[in-house]
């Protein structure tokens, strides 16, 4: 899981062009959207595209988005379960 968390941090930084942010700066348990990183709804949509493209994860409702993007840890958890659910 830690590996996935780190991988997601790198992808978030790259996808959202987060200047001066390194993976170590992102607390995986901190609020992801509307938190210290200054991310908003457009960033969420950009991440939705990245998740579908890179992990095959579909997030197509606001309610689900709010849950999945609560924190990097929640995101990693969702991706992990989505992928293992698919392989079962």
């Amino acid at each position, binding site marked *: 899981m830690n590996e996935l968390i780190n991988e997601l941090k790198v992808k978030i930084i790259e996808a959202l062009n987060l200047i001066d942010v390194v993976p170590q700066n992102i607390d995986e348990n901190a609020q992801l959207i509307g938190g210290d990183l200054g991310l908003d709804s*457009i960033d969420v949509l950009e991440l939705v595209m990245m998740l*579908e*493209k890179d992990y095959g994860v579909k997030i197509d409702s606001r309610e689900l988005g709010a849950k999945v993007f609560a924190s990097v840890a929640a995101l990693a958890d969702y991706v992990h379960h989505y992928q293992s659910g698919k392989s079962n």
Partner: protein
Amino acid sequence: MGIFITSMGIISPVGCSIHDTMNAIRNATPGIKPLRLFPTGQTPPLPVGEISSLSFIDDVPRTHALARIAAEEAMKDAGDAPDAVVIGVTTGGMSVTEELLKTGILDPDKYKYHSTGSVGEYVARHVECNGPVLTVSTACSSGAVALKIALEMLRSGKAKQVLAGGVDALCRLTYYGFHALQLVDETGAHPFDRKRRGMSVGEGAAMLLLTAAESPPQNALSELLGAGLSCDAYHPAAPHPEGLGALTAMQDALSDARISPADIDYIHLHGTGTVDNDLAEARAIHTLFRDRPIPPLSSQKGAIGHSLAAAGAMGAVVSTLSITNSIIPANTGFHDPDPLLNLIPAVKPVEANVTTVLANSFGFGGNNAVLVLGHPQRRKSSPTPMRTARPVHLAVLGSACFTGAGNAKRTIECLGHGEGVRGIVPSPEILKLLSEKYVRRLKRLCRMVLSLAVSACEGHEKTDPPLAVYFGTGWGGMSETYDFLSKLYASEEQFTSPTDFIGSVHNAAAGHVAIRFQSTGPNVTTTGGDCSFEHALYSASLLSHDTDTPLLVIGADEYHDTLSHLFDASVAREGFPADGGGALYLRPATSESPLQICLSFIAYTGNNRNTISELISTLGGAKRINDQFGAILTGIPAAQRESGEAQLNTFLSMTGYPHPVIDYRRFVGEFATASAVAAVLAVSFIQADEIPANVCREHSLPLRGRGILVLGFGSHISAVEITP
């Protein structure tokens, strides 16, 4: 005096004429079906408002064909050519460009209809218009903003008849772009319904012939009583949650029409069907009417989809049909009331006497435009007084420019040393006044425009920020457009970037400027090719007649490695990469204003009429030109070198102009809004009362208190006076 709609033309998914459209309204004909226009790869096609039986007349993109059909219908019984054309467009030739880029065809000639500006020019050639041909690109409010500009043009007496409206055609950019933003309802749009999930992207065109007259002409269908423009200054793509900007635009439209909310018989809703848009619009309507009864209302977008730049003009046509046929159109797709909206639109067409209509249009960048249309013989307000035809002078309080050399100071230094300034604006120069974190999502053009705006307003930002923003750009955000399509094609039309879609909208940069300065007044982006900056200045002067609030007029274009050569024939011909722009912080001038700018002439020359004598006479004749202006800065796009030089030579021989004429594109470079740089340089020269050495001759040239004339030649002729 009144401004009357005397004829109209429309093409939409439910009808190819006014007659068909009226039948469709009576029968509440649904027009939304799965997309057929282009393949959608592995994903099933989404429901759209597509025009299925479009017959092309010329070898032109879909947008142009739609515009021509609507324009021809509007002009079929008109005797004379219109004095001006004002048209809202966002897609231009995008549908063709997408195919060409997808198949790797890189022949600039094939892209000649790419620009949004080419649509208005195509229409102007068909209706033989020789006056101003303006293109407005303010996303989904474009058509209504175009009508507001036309209204002010007529009220000022600058024109007697204007053909105005909007058009857009379906293309991948809008189809996939709105989908990437999760703003498309996969079951088709059902505006104002509790279960609404989004819009259906659509296409179409609507053109209206507006006539100024003392009393209603016999063929008057409705009267355009007023219009209001505002900007949310809140978010690049989402509306203000309380609909504050929408409310301001509605209030301004009512006050412009000199009526109150109680006079409204029908509200033609913007009603896209997205969760947030409908909620913001509903909240704005509740605030506007407070405890008064709300009149019947409906959105057409559940029947025809959202035709983007055409939507506002279609709203004007449908509102007029509502008045002439005494009918409230149905809100197709509505079934289940939403308690949060607390509004129930008309579920089926209803017969009703309709005298006055409020028609809403809202777009990306928080761009709001609201029209008020009335029965031509049953006006509830006093007529609008005629305004002066004298062009509005604006006082220059601040300015900034970028060239390949850097900012204005560096540019003038380089010019003084005889060094070239043409080239690509250095990126660190653009970022100097911006926080990189703040602009992390913005690409080159948006950054350049924001930086220019901050620099031009330096010293005024806190005390007197600009309330209105006027922005001219020939090509908009090419980086975002290119990146959007590249990602789309790389993923076999599966994935793209929502951020790039938002940035690709022509008015994105002006929206960011509004957010930065909290500029909640009009926010107008004009995209008339090499005349885009002049069109922005013209719009600013038309819409600033009764205000004394500060405003920004900006012109800028970016250079893009692939697209600049394909889109801009002057870049293709010259081959030297260049970009830049200029910004002016202005305020309507008083007699004491020391430095003033005024757009005094603008005309399209595509119909080969000789407008030079008209230009000279508008400028006050040869004597005034020779006495008042110590130099001319002339802009002739490389692609129109021969015709432009011939026009300039005619001007010079007819006036016998004795002072230097400076061909500024030779040193600023080829980009559509090079004239914005010229205007800013002219301001600097006048402030110094001299033109530095090496600009036009070895030694500096004293201006001796005279002004500078910035003239544009080619397919549009323009004159900007800058005077001390």
